């Protein structure tokens, strides 16, 4: 319950944070809302020597829209994303998914950037990011780069975030198309055992799965079937090409079934909103 000791650094700007990150390297962890990091530090599964707090960096939590893109600062709280008028109007899937994260207190402190950088394979947000075709803005000392969600989530707790880089913002293309998120939460943790996010497009749509596999992923077979006009029946393809591993949450067959069932539910909901 007591984290190991660390040196605390309060970043005053993004460039200050990047300097601190360059100085302390692998000995440092970046603190956003703390709701992924502090629990593992309390259990001493992580004991960073340095903590770089982004909480006082100005301008990191804004939510704006321009040029067909909604930009959300990395320090925006889940609760703010869920209730933001801009997000609800221009990227409603993200608002819906943000409202499923954890519980109200967790949503009040946890941040979009912190959650994405942590990349828990059972987190809700990655499914929305993939379904929305969203991107993250990664800032390094030498400049920034924008990485699509498809490239960002590499593996369990692994992302494309490089050493010395900060995730500073999320960019979501504006979409008013129908969408939905269907989730089967773990009764203890509230994390997704299965979560399927769907953003329909002009023809077809993007379908993404979280929880059931080592990393969040697009369901290519479902998307192909949707594009081919399969409608709700596209859900039958949800387990195609996905490797499910048996664990405490169920057998591979059960997980494949959940993928199909929750894809079907999300798809049905999204099609109903069309």
């Amino acid at each position, binding site marked *: 319950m*007591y984290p190991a000791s660390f040196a605390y650094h309060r970043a005053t700007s993004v460039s200050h944070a990047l300097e601190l990150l360059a100085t302390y390297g692998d000995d440092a962890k970046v603190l956003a809302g703390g709701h992924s990091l502090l629990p593992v530090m309390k259990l001493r599964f992580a004991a960073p020597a340095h903590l770089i707090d982004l909480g006082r960096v100005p301008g990191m939590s804004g939510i704006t829209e321009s040029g067909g893109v909604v930009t959300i600062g990395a320090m925006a709280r889940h609760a703010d994303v869920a209730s933001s008028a801009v997000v609800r109007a221009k990227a409603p899937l993200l608002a819906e998914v943000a409202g499923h994260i954890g519980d109200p207190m967790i949503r009040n402190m946890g941040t979009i950037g912190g959650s994405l950088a942590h990349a828990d394979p059972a987190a809700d947000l990655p499914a929305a990011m993939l379904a929305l075709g969203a991107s993250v803005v990664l800032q390094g000392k030498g400049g920034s780069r924008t990485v699509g969600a498809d490239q960002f989530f590499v593996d369990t707790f692994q992302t494309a975030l490089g050493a010395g880089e900060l995730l500073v913002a999320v960019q979501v293309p504006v979409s008013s198309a129908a969408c939905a998120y269907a989730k089967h939460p773990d009764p*203890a*943790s509230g994390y997704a055992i299965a979560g399927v996010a769907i953003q329909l497009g002009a023809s077809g749509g993007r379908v993404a799965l979280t929880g059931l596999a080592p990393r969040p992923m697009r369901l290519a077979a479902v998307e192909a079937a949707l594009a081919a006009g399969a409608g709700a029946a596209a859900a039958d393809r949800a387990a195609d090409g996905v490797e499910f591993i048996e664990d405490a949450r*169920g057998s591979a067959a*059960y997980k494949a079934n959940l993928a199909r069932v929750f894809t079907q539910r999300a798809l049905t909901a999204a099609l109903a909103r069309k």
Partner: protein
Amino acid sequence: MIGASVKRKEDGRFLTGRGKYTDDITLPGQLHAAFVRSPYAHAKIRAVDASAARAMPGVRAVFTGADLKAGGVNPIPVGWLHAGINVAEHHAMAVDAARYVGEAVAVVLADSAATARDAAEAVAVDYEELAAVVSAVDALRAGAPQVHGNAAGNVAFTWQLGDAAGTDAAIKGAKTVVRQHLGNQRLIPNAIEPRACLASFDAANDELTLYVTSQNPHVHRLIMGAFVLGIPEQRFRVVAPDVGGGFGSKIFIYPEEVVACWASKQVGAPVKWTATRSEAFLSDSHGRDHETEVEMAFDAAGKIVGLRVHTVANMGAHFTLFAPAVPTYLYGTLLSGQYDIPVIHVSVTAAYTNTVPVDAYRGAGRPEATYVLERTLDIAAGTLGVDPAELRRRNFIAPTKFPYQTAVALQYDSGNYAPALDKALGMVGYAQLRAEQAAARAKGRYIGIGLSSYIEACGLAPSHVVGSLGAQAGLYESGAVRVHPTGKVTVLTGSHSHGQGHETTFAQIVAHELGCALDDVEVVHGDTAKIPFGMGSYGSRSGAVGGSALFMSIQKVKEKGRRIAAHQLEAAVEDVDFKDGTYFVKGAPGKQKGFGEIALAAYLAHNIPGDMEPGLDSTSFFNPSNFVYPFGTHIAVVEVDPATGHVALTKYVAVDDFGNVINPMIVDGQLHGGIAQGVAQALWEGGVYDGNGQLLTGSMMTYALPKAHFLPMVESDRTVTPSPINPLGVKGAGEAGTIASTAATANAVLDALAPFGITHLDMPLTPAKIWAAIQTARGGH
């Protein structure tokens, strides 16, 4: 006043953040303890190197199990012994070997809790890992790793009750025999307040004070003082202040408390320890963990003619205080339930394993017994083609048969079971619900209805009975009434409230009997320096036993007051009556004295009978002549989603008979919470170890406690059959909800799955398990 839903007197401090729990208490100069715990389920301890920890700034001491043993600390004893029991020494910290993951191996004392934790990580223990065994069934197999040297084959004890030969004959001669294997999984209590203790040794007076999260502080003092630490009771004070829930888990004498007491004397400073939740999962005694084979035999009319039960009970690595009683006298004796069963035999083999000790958890043996009976009855109803409600009704003990001697030792003093069943069926709209169920099935929706008609033996317990059965203590209770000269009253009770509301209900008894205001009564509990003696709160005993002791003291006080009033009113004692706080002479209006006047007179002693001692107080010990027997029927309604296996509990109806009820609001609250815990066993909770003895469900991230949105509103009602064995006519209400609801919920789920041909699944009935069973069933078609 008795029978009124009076709002609780204790709520004010809890609602404003002024409750005083153990961890809220701070003593000057206190040190903080952190424990080094075994990461292995079974390991020899070759050496402990604490030099690095001792060298850290702020660290004051490190002690090992060997230090404690050398320092004269005795093993923690067991409070209930069976013939032939193999009691292995249970040291507060492992001396030669660690026998479960989480067993304390060493303790660090430091200036702050954070430093203590840092230093605990720096203690290097040289372990030699040994083979471990986690399931009781595996532990009893030939060649299994041996948990203790003195328990061959890991047999902790064997026990049996009932007529083996008669049962065998009944089963052989029966028309139908239903046989089933039933698992009753391990549960982890998880009171929301983690255990904590703060021990302070005062060298000047050679006195020890222990603040501790205890349900029974006098038992703590007796066992720790007399058996473990060798401290005279008169110089040992145990205080259980506000306690944040217990559910059995805070009955036992835990290693950390022993260590804190001993260490405080060693270092000359108060020593405090508060469990983290992770530690609680690994160190609070767990509950249940049975594997049972049941055979229930029926005649052609659907009457039960015999019942045979064999249970393997997992005791974990050590016996804690009550452990041997739980799968035996609190279990086997309940196997007649509400039913007229002519012959029963139950046998139990208890095994040591490399897991956290298993002891009493809410219901303690009685939920396990109820589950065996009620689950088997539902399976039998399917086999016999009889409606589950009808099968129960056919087998109820007839009201004319009370007192009823069961085939498993208990004598039920009272009971009338059909009215509770009928009431519950009426509340749930049973006939219509069955029609809706049939209609829903036709549409591919799977609704299930589950009944549980339970009986409970609580109000623990007649001391002579439990003594003859192996208890090492009596199970009476004390209650003292101290009337002050102003007529205000202090109650000293040996019961302990950790959520039950004694400060209100016990004051209600006094106010009702003495005709005074509720606010004029103060109830004191939880402090051995204030309370004469007590056995504490568990086994739904506070009202029936503690309340009765209090009632006895009130009567003695009233009677003494009556003699003073008679003296002052110049009337014969038998002509003086007492009503609504006033003594009066029968048939002589105006000749009266208020209770306050009499109280003052008793203390002034200017005008009391010449042969009377001044003062107005009384201490009584109530030793019940029998258990009390709450009963009732609960009905759960669920809907199973066949696509995912998810279970939604949609309706829950409870009809209980708790006898007379002192405060209906509080009793309903006990029921609601009990039901949530029992439902949770059926659907969500389960302590799971891997083959190496690592607890896979060691946090609230992985062990699913019920949340608000998992549960519907419970609809409850009561029948009232007062208990004849105590003056209040009350029974116990603390455990009934848990005892009834597990079986009701499991039965509902299996009822929903009946169209698939699924007759039984072991708990918890998780979506993955249900879905897999449906697939298997479909594949088999």
